[in-house]
């Protein structure tokens, strides 16, 4: 420690009382959400997933513009054509198929005029698969979103009320949940289908009938914790009504749980619809959903594998993206990380 730098003036008392300065917060003011977004941004995988999802959503909602043709236009003469791009030079998109060891040009066989091609091939009624996938994905996403709405509209209030009231009310509400969850989903679906007619509404209602239970359970458990939190007690001592406490204090603090759970609701709804399609009570024809496309594709897999691969790929992509995003969100909303 050399004293060289020390001058006489160094030992003058520092009279400015600058501890006020200390109280200034130097870091930029970040809201909780901003903070979460910052953390999310750091997670490259999650960001990529987000963009993939946005791209898919955009593509499906622009389907009327970008789809090569209407998803329901049939041309049975062109049925089951394999994928082909342009003149068919790209491997995997040549428009050929191997029939008993011989490679044949399916397009030629079907008498498709030169220059006309289907990027992802056609289905059993000669409908363009790409267009159907675009529209199908849109419908599947819509189902996911609608199911989420039900989830939000029932699950959250139910969970909050059950958790907030506690005691007998809670026991009663939990019993109801137990009972509902012990009724097989399929029964509900079929009943809805019979009463309401097959279609989007039935599927969404059926998914919604039991779909909100996980959300309600999570919210209830969290509400139990939150309601003992001192800031909630503070609001009570200020005379805030329970409804307003729910809006101002509970829901904002439940938001991460809600977002993450939603992220799981969407894919499970899409999955459930796929399952319904498989057993034949999904979206009615001619509308396509990823589920109907997949179940059709599965049946044709031996000979026309592309009819399963492409919808499966899209479904997997959405699932993977949503799941990775959900993981990212969970981490982002967890201040501990």
């Amino acid at each position, binding site marked *: 420690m050399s004293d060289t730098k020390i001058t006489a003036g160094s030992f003058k008392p520092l009279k400015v009382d600058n501890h006020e300065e200390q109280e200034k917060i130097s870091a930029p003011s970040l809201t909780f959400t901003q903070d979460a977004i910052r953390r999310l941004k750091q997670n490259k995988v999650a960001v990529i997933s987000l963009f993939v999802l946005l791209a898919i959503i955009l593509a499906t909602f622009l389907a009327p513009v970008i789809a090569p043709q209407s998803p329901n236009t049939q041309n049975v003469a062109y049925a089951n054509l394999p994928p082909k791009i342009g003149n068919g030079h790209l491997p995997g998109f040549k428009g050929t198929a191997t029939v008993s060891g011989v490679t044949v040009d399916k397009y030629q066989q079907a008498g498709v005029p030169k220059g006309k091609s289907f990027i992802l091939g056609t289905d059993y009624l000669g409908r363009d698969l790409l267009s159907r996938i675009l529209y199908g994905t849109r419908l599947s996403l819509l189902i996911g979103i609608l199911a989420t709405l039900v989830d939000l509209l029932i699950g959250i209030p139910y969970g909050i009320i059950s958790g907030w009231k506690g005691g007998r009310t809670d026991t009663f509400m939990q019993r109801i949940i*137990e*009972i509902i969850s*012990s009724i097989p989903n399929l*029964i509900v679906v079929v009943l809805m289908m019979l009463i309401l007619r097959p279609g989007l509404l039935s599927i969404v209602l059926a998914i919604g009938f039991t779909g909100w239970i996980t959300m309600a359970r999570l919210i209830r458990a969290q509400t139990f914790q939150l309601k003992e939190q001192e800031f909630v007690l503070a609001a009570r001592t200020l005379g805030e009504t329970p409804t307003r406490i729910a809006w101002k204090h509970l829901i904002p603090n439940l938001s991460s749980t809600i977002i993450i759970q939603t992220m799981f609701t969407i894919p499970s709804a899409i999955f459930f619809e796929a399952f319904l399609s*498989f057993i034949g009570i999904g979206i009615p024809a001619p509308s396509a959903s990823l589920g109907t496309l*997949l179940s059709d594709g*599965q049946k044709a897999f031996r000979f026309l594998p592309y009819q399963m691969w492409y919808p499966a790929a899209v479904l*997997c992509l959405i699932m993977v993206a949503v799941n990775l995003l959900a*993981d990212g969100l969970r981490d982002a909303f967890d201040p501990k990380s």
Partner: protein
Amino acid sequence: MTKYLIKRICYLVLTLFIVASVTFFMMKLMPGTPYTNQEKLSADQLRIMNEQYGLNKPILEQYWIYIVGLLHGDFGTSFQFNNQPVLGLIMSRLAPSLQIGAQAMILGSGLGILLGAVAAIRKNTWVDGVATFFSILGISIPNFVLAVLLQFFLAFKLQMFPIALWDGFSSSILPTLALAVAPLANTARFMRTEMVDVLSSDYIELAKAKGNSRWQTVAKHALRNSMIPVVTIIGPMAVNLMTGSLVVENIFSIPGIGEQFVKSIMTNDYPTIMGLTIFYSFLLMVIILVVDILYGIIDPRIRLSEKGAN
């Protein structure tokens, strides 16, 4: 403990009763009758059959008869399989589903726990990345797609396993695999999250401070504690698996209960639907009870608080 069990069983019975009632009235809401067919039944035949099935009585009385029957273990007879008792029907279809379900459950959750634990311990390394990727992929592939792929590649092309049909253990392997992937992936993810939490807790610190190596710490302290919440998801998962997966049963031509369920729905076979629903609920609640007891075994805090409450 016995007191607790009795209380739980009372709840179980009550819930079953409600489920039975709800399904009963739901079935009555369903349009159509079980014997709608293209064939013509004479009015007299119809009347006699309705009498035989008790369908001519007022709904409330039918309900009463049904509930009383249930109490005697009588689930009624199937419409679809003429005169076949529903209980027998369920039992004969249950075995394959239970076997595959249990195998898938054990395989899936076992491997899932392992995978999740490894991912958590190697958090933020490539191991974690790979494990996460596979578990997400596992959740993302519908099991029917998986079943088709397994059948085509492993059984048809490579002839490693039977293609389908129900004939001994070897024919249960592929369906087990197809079903195991989702629980595997789910448990792995759940386990990872939980394990990461547990690994950052004080008692793990203390375990390390005692001189436990990393793996000793995990084996002795972290694993068990991380399993506690995992057990909760294992319950419903087990029910879903054991009550059969229509899809996988269909693809592998397994005479399982999932397939039967859809069939009875499609044929308006009300007694079978009701029987299956009640049975399903029963299974669900028994599994939840088992899980709760398991829970207590894994987590002494719960065990004791219940003892205390009784």
